């Protein structure tokens, strides 16, 4: 099953990279750009009987390795083939 994991910085955690990108956007004339935050997306395939099982395993993977829950939140999308 194809799984997409989105990892984003928690609100309140400083994102120096996001801030630098924001000021670059503004200097390019996109003055409407605000609150830029940079995260990452991890895609993977998980062998599982059903979507909820895949979701569960992906959540375990996030907790044990993929996300640092001190500063990051994660969300999981499972593409259900059915």
């Amino acid at each position, binding site marked *: 099953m194809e799984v997409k994991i989105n990892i984003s910085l928690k609100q309140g*955690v400083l994102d120096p990279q996001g801030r630098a990108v924001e000021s670059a956007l503004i200097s390019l004339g996109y003055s409407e750009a605000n609150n830029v935050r940079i995260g990452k997306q991890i895609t993977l395939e998980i062998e599982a009987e059903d979507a909820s099982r895949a979701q569960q395993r992906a959540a375990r993977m996030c907790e044990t*390795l993929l996300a640092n829950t*001190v500063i990051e939140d994660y969300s999981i999308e499972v593409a259900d083939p059915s």
Partner: protein
Amino acid sequence: MRVAILVFPGSNCDRDMMVAVETITGRRPALVWHKDSQMDPVDLIILPGGFSFGDYLRCGALAARAPVVEAMLDHASRGGAVLGVCNGFQILLETGLLPGTLIRNERLKFVCRSVNLQLQPDHDSPLLSTLDPGHSLTIPIAHNEGNYFAQKDDLEMLKQNGQIAFKYTASPAFGPDNPNGATDDIAGILSANGRVLGMMPHPERAIGNGHPSSDGKLLLRAILQGVA
């Protein structure tokens, strides 16, 4: 005094640390490869600096799940002493042995220079007990992700238990100093039992013999005495 230095693919301060420790103790520490799940008992385990696993995913994240780290966690859970420097500090945070994390430097630049550190007088660690309270040390840093961050409760706990070991401080030579944006100028922290120390500055790069400072030697000697 038995010391082991853990080596991961991408570690690059392991040999400097080996030389620094050998200079002080006269005995060469063991270098232990990350795939080893068993280790001979030692008095101190050191996680050196570098770029373990290319800093992939997050600094220290992959190294923190290596087999040898399981052995290190066992050692720590029995009250064993551990020192993590730079990437080694990042690894200790990723294992959860120390609270918080290290994020990108505030100004997005790799910073490589000497800083002034102040040993916190209220620290509660046998590893640092032979140093004068408030002792000031000049030791270099070299990192891109050294900006210490922790949740409020963790910070409060660190303060109340005397788990903050070092803070960056101003000095005539290096100016008003927080090189990376670290919360409360934190440069190094301790575990609750005071026997696990993680720090961004590199003491192995300040052991005299051509280095501008020998304060790192002083600190490593204190740690080695504290462990014994």
